[in-house]
């Protein structure tokens, strides 16, 4: 069991900044995120797109903002638990006990949910019956490419993942890449490499086609693809790789007994606490009159929530508001030299 002052769910920009706000108040934190890296939507959806409304920073990309935030919270040595999802939250007297899908348990007086729109999951194929092949002959990511050696692979998607894997696997297997239009959004260079291979007969590219159905029993045997004008084509297939990006799913949060409105959690605007004492919600996932889904709003929400977190974690200490420019104590916590 990991004891800490606050558990933060979600390592997006808002989750990262609340580590700072809790850290300057002397609180220890543990962060849990379902993705394999910190940054949330900034990293998954727009790593290279500029953001223009971070106060004092005229323009920075999602990746740059994430990197800066990670640098800013370094002094607080928060532990990151990535690729991990909180499944269960239970109350035990004044504490919250959290269990993750990897079997870790956390005990803390404060839980700060900075979960954005939920956890990211691969977007699945919209074909009835495709679930039964999942993990056997249908994959949404590649962990071990050796199993595809000398097999017939059908790859769906038009982005970099689809193009990169088509190119890579064409060296060891028979690859067909299928995309709904002629234009690909993946790197033009990779596409031209693939087109060269197509001329040599080493890879097959089918555009303006989408999946129609899958044939097989235990494993996939073939797929039927369909064009915009209803032309159908059968392709012998051992494995399907599908790359349609990520979707956001709220996941188990919906079952924790919090007051919710559709997919967002209601909070008060004094300290961003939910209807459960000690559980806070900040950033895109919280809702209150006038809420704006801006990163800067999330920063503000985290700052206010951290004050109540302090009061709960340190009931015998008095909370003192301090400025980072002048507080010696904060400077010590930031590890600054005197």
């Amino acid at each position, binding site marked *: 069991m990991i004891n800490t002052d606050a558990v933060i769910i979600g390592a997006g920009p808002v989750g990262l900044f609340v580590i700072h706000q809790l850290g300057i108040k002397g609180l220890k934190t543990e962060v849990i995120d379902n993705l394999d890296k910190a940054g949330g939507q900034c990293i998954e*959806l727009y790593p290279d797109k500029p953001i223009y409304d971070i106060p004092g920073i005229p323009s920075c990309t999602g990746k740059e903002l994430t990197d800066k935030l990670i640098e800013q919270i370094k002094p607080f040595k928060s532990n990151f638990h990535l690729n991990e999802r909180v499944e269960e939250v239970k109350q035990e007297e004044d504490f919250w006990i959290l269990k993750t899908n990897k079997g870790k348990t956390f005990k803390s007086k404060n839980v700060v949910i900075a979960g954005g*729109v939920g956890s990211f999951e691969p977007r699945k194929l919209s074909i009835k019956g495709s679930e039964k092949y999942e993990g056997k002959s249908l994959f949404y990511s590649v962990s071990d490419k050796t199993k595809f050696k000398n097999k017939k692979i059908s790859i769906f*998607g*038009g982005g970099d993942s689809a193009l990169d894997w088509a190119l890579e696997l064409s060296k060891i297997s028979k690859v067909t890449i299928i995309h709904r239009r002629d*234009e690909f959004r993946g790197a033009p260079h990779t596409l031209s490499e693939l087109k060269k291979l197509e001329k040599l007969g080493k890879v097959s590219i089918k555009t303006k086609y*989408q999946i129609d159905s899958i044939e097989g029993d235990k494993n996939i045997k073939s797929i039927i693809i369909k064009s915009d004008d209803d032309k159908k084509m059968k392709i012998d297939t051992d494995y399907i790789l599908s790359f*349609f*990006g990520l*979707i*956001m799913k709220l996941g188990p949060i919906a079952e924790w007994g919090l007051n919710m409105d559709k997919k967002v959690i209601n909070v008060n605007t004094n300290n961003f606490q939910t209807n459960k004492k000690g559980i806070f919600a900040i950033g895109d996932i919280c809702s209150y009159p006038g809420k704006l889904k801006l990163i800067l709003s999330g920063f503000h929400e985290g700052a206010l929530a951290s004050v109540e977190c302090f009061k709960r974690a340190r009931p015998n200490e008095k909370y003192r508001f301090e400025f980072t420019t002048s507080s010696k104590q904060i400077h010590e916590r930031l590890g600054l030299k005197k």
Partner: protein
Amino acid sequence: MPKITYIDSSGNQKTIEVEIGLTVMEGAIQNNVTGIDADCGGGMSCATCHVYVKEEWLNKLPKAEDAEQDMIDMAFQPQKNSRLSCQITVTENLDGLTVTTPEKQN
């Protein structure tokens, strides 16, 4: 105000007066029209406000940018007449626009 009609996959339809300047997505969200999720809030980064636009209306809309087409690649069952409703801004000319929402958004 222009009237926009939203039809869901089972045929239920709702006609809403949407203020000029709002997007077709905002018109749906503000009026509790189901079938449009808009997880990212209009940032063209999630494809959960995906709609099908009737052929006769499709040509009256400004063409989808590349970035919108890129997102539509990831939408649930995209078709030729797929658009993201967050990218369709309501104008006087769109009075009567009808969009159909897919079976689900993701």
